[in-house]
Protein backbone atom coordinates (compact mmCIF):
# COMPACT_ATOMS: atom_id res chain seq x y z
CA UNK A 1 0.00 0.00 0.00
CA UNK A 2 1.60 3.21 -1.15
CA UNK A 3 1.51 6.58 0.51
CA UNK A 4 -0.97 7.78 -2.11
CA UNK A 5 -3.46 5.17 -0.89
CA UNK A 6 -2.86 6.10 2.75
CA UNK A 7 -3.41 9.74 1.80
CA UNK A 8 -6.70 8.93 0.11
CA UNK A 9 -7.93 6.95 3.13
CA UNK A 10 -6.94 9.61 5.68
CA UNK A 11 -8.42 12.39 3.54
CA UNK A 12 -11.62 10.41 3.01
CA UNK A 13 -11.94 9.77 6.76
CA UNK A 14 -11.65 13.53 7.36
CA UNK A 15 -13.99 14.54 4.53
CA UNK A 16 -16.81 12.21 5.59
CA UNK A 17 -16.58 13.53 9.16
CA UNK A 18 -16.96 17.01 7.66
CA UNK A 19 -19.92 16.00 5.46
CA UNK A 20 -21.76 14.12 8.21
CA UNK A 21 -20.99 17.04 10.52
CA UNK A 22 -22.67 19.50 8.14
CA UNK A 23 -25.65 17.16 7.87
CA UNK A 24 -25.77 16.94 11.68
CA UNK A 25 -25.79 20.76 11.81
CA UNK A 26 -28.73 20.81 9.38
CA UNK A 27 -30.86 18.29 11.25
CA UNK A 28 -30.17 20.04 14.55
CA UNK A 29 -31.57 23.26 13.07
CA UNK A 30 -34.62 22.02 11.12
CA UNK A 31 -38.11 21.35 12.34
CA UNK A 32 -39.42 17.79 12.73
CA UNK A 33 -42.20 18.80 10.32
CA UNK A 34 -39.70 18.79 7.42
CA UNK A 35 -41.31 16.65 4.69
CA UNK A 36 -38.10 14.89 3.66
CA UNK A 37 -35.82 14.53 6.68
CA UNK A 38 -38.33 15.22 9.46
CA UNK A 39 -37.99 11.71 10.89
CA UNK A 40 -34.26 12.10 11.40
CA UNK A 41 -34.74 15.63 12.73
CA UNK A 42 -37.16 14.31 15.35
CA UNK A 43 -34.84 11.43 16.28
CA UNK A 44 -31.79 13.70 16.71
CA UNK A 45 -33.67 16.31 18.67
CA UNK A 46 -35.11 13.63 20.94
CA UNK A 47 -31.53 12.42 21.33
CA UNK A 48 -30.57 15.89 22.61
CA UNK A 49 -33.24 15.67 25.28
CA UNK A 50 -32.42 12.06 26.08
CA UNK A 51 -29.02 10.91 24.76
CA UNK A 52 -29.91 7.30 25.60
CA UNK A 53 -32.77 7.37 23.10
CA UNK A 54 -30.29 5.94 20.56
CA UNK A 55 -30.39 2.68 22.45
CA UNK A 56 -33.96 2.10 21.32
CA UNK A 57 -32.92 1.16 17.80
CA UNK A 58 -30.59 -1.62 16.72
CA UNK A 59 -27.40 -1.69 14.69
CA UNK A 60 -29.24 -2.07 11.39
CA UNK A 61 -31.37 1.00 12.05
CA UNK A 62 -28.24 3.05 12.78
CA UNK A 63 -26.50 1.89 9.61
CA UNK A 64 -28.99 1.56 6.77
CA UNK A 65 -29.93 5.19 6.21
CA UNK A 66 -26.37 6.63 6.16
CA UNK A 67 -25.47 3.77 3.82
CA UNK A 68 -28.25 4.62 1.39
CA UNK A 69 -27.37 8.32 1.52
CA UNK A 70 -23.70 7.54 0.79
CA UNK A 71 -24.38 5.24 -2.17
CA UNK A 72 -23.65 8.00 -4.74
CA UNK A 73 -20.04 8.00 -3.46
CA UNK A 74 -19.62 4.55 -4.96
CA UNK A 75 -20.45 5.91 -8.41
CA UNK A 76 -17.30 8.05 -8.15
CA UNK A 77 -15.19 5.07 -7.03
CA UNK A 78 -15.16 3.89 -10.67
CA UNK A 79 -13.13 6.93 -11.62
CA UNK A 80 -9.94 8.25 -9.97
CA UNK A 81 -9.28 8.19 -6.21
CA UNK A 82 -11.15 4.92 -5.56
CA UNK A 83 -9.73 4.50 -2.06
CA UNK A 84 -10.94 7.99 -1.15
CA UNK A 85 -14.49 7.26 -2.27
CA UNK A 86 -14.60 3.82 -0.64
CA UNK A 87 -13.43 5.42 2.60
CA UNK A 88 -16.10 8.12 2.33
CA UNK A 89 -18.71 5.39 1.83
CA UNK A 90 -17.39 3.27 4.71
CA UNK A 91 -17.22 6.31 7.00
CA UNK A 92 -20.81 7.25 6.27
CA UNK A 93 -21.86 3.65 6.86
CA UNK A 94 -20.39 3.55 10.40
CA UNK A 95 -20.92 7.21 11.33
CA UNK A 96 -24.02 6.72 13.44
CA UNK A 97 -22.54 3.64 15.09
CA UNK A 98 -19.44 5.67 16.02
CA UNK A 99 -21.77 8.34 17.44
CA UNK A 100 -23.61 5.66 19.42
CA UNK A 101 -20.34 4.27 20.82
CA UNK A 102 -19.31 7.79 21.89
CA UNK A 103 -22.43 7.81 24.06
CA UNK A 104 -21.81 4.32 25.45
CA UNK A 105 -18.59 5.40 27.19
CA UNK A 106 -17.08 2.47 29.10
CA UNK A 107 -19.96 0.26 27.91
CA UNK A 108 -18.75 0.47 24.30
CA UNK A 109 -16.96 -2.69 23.09
CA UNK A 110 -13.19 -2.87 23.65
CA UNK A 111 -12.33 -2.43 19.98
CA UNK A 112 -14.48 0.70 19.75
CA UNK A 113 -12.81 2.17 22.84
CA UNK A 114 -9.39 1.32 21.36
CA UNK A 115 -10.30 3.12 18.12
CA UNK A 116 -11.59 6.07 20.15
CA UNK A 117 -8.29 6.27 22.03
CA UNK A 118 -6.40 6.17 18.75
CA UNK A 119 -8.59 9.00 17.42
CA UNK A 120 -9.96 6.89 14.58
CA UNK A 121 -13.47 7.14 16.04
CA UNK A 122 -14.95 10.03 17.98
CA UNK A 123 -14.37 9.87 21.74
CA UNK A 124 -16.98 10.56 24.43
CA UNK A 125 -15.08 13.73 25.41
CA UNK A 126 -14.91 15.09 21.86
CA UNK A 127 -18.62 14.47 21.29
CA UNK A 128 -19.50 15.70 24.79
CA UNK A 129 -18.57 19.22 23.68
CA UNK A 130 -21.50 19.11 21.25
CA UNK A 131 -23.93 18.23 24.03
CA UNK A 132 -22.79 21.28 25.99
CA UNK A 133 -24.82 23.74 23.94
CA UNK A 134 -25.54 21.92 20.64
CA UNK A 135 -23.85 24.73 18.73
CA UNK A 136 -20.39 23.31 18.08
CA UNK A 137 -18.45 20.09 17.47
CA UNK A 138 -20.91 18.56 15.01
CA UNK A 139 -18.64 15.69 13.92
CA UNK A 140 -20.05 12.23 14.66
CA UNK A 141 -17.48 9.91 13.07
CA UNK A 142 -14.07 10.95 14.37
CA UNK A 143 -14.18 14.65 15.25
CA UNK A 144 -11.21 15.45 13.01
CA UNK A 145 -13.21 18.19 11.32
CA UNK A 146 -14.31 19.96 14.53
CA UNK A 147 -11.91 22.83 13.92
CA UNK A 148 -13.29 23.47 10.44
CA UNK A 149 -16.90 22.83 11.48
CA UNK A 150 -16.67 25.16 14.48
CA UNK A 151 -15.20 27.85 12.25
CA UNK A 152 -17.95 27.46 9.63
CA UNK A 153 -20.98 26.48 11.72
CA UNK A 154 -20.15 27.02 15.38
CA UNK A 155 -21.96 29.33 17.73
CA UNK A 156 -22.31 32.68 16.06
CA UNK A 157 -23.86 34.64 18.93
CA UNK A 158 -20.89 34.87 21.31
Amino acid at each position, binding site marked *: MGWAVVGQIVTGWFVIDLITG*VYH*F*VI*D*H*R*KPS*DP*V*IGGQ*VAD*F*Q*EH*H*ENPRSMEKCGLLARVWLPTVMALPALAFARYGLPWFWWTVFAGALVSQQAHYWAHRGPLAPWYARALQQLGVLISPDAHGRHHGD*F*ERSYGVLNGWSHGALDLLLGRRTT
Partner: protein
Amino acid sequence: MTAILYILAAVGVLAIAYAVFIVVDAFRHPPMG
Protein backbone atom coordinates in the same frame (compact mmCIF):
# COMPACT_ATOMS: atom_id res chain seq x y z
CA MET B 1 -33.35 4.76 -21.61
CA THR B 2 -32.95 8.46 -22.38
CA ALA B 3 -36.18 9.25 -20.56
CA ILE B 4 -34.94 7.41 -17.47
CA LEU B 5 -31.72 9.40 -17.54
CA TYR B 6 -33.69 12.65 -17.80
CA ILE B 7 -35.82 11.62 -14.81
CA LEU B 8 -32.74 10.68 -12.78
CA ALA B 9 -31.09 13.98 -13.71
CA ALA B 10 -34.22 15.89 -12.67
CA VAL B 11 -34.35 14.04 -9.34
CA GLY B 12 -30.65 14.76 -8.86
CA VAL B 13 -31.07 18.47 -9.54
CA LEU B 14 -34.02 18.65 -7.13
CA ALA B 15 -32.04 16.78 -4.46
CA ILE B 16 -29.09 19.15 -4.82
CA ALA B 17 -31.38 22.20 -4.72
CA TYR B 18 -33.09 20.87 -1.59
CA ALA B 19 -29.70 20.12 0.04
CA VAL B 20 -28.49 23.67 -0.65
CA PHE B 21 -31.75 25.10 0.70
CA ILE B 22 -31.69 23.16 3.99
CA VAL B 23 -28.03 24.04 4.64
CA VAL B 24 -28.62 27.76 4.00
CA ASP B 25 -31.88 27.73 5.96
CA ALA B 26 -30.19 26.02 8.95
CA PHE B 27 -28.15 29.19 9.52
CA ARG B 28 -31.37 31.15 10.07
CA HIS B 29 -32.48 29.17 13.14
CA PRO B 30 -30.99 28.32 16.52
CA PRO B 31 -30.62 24.62 17.30
CA MET B 32 -33.96 23.03 18.11
CA GLY B 33 -34.83 20.30 20.50
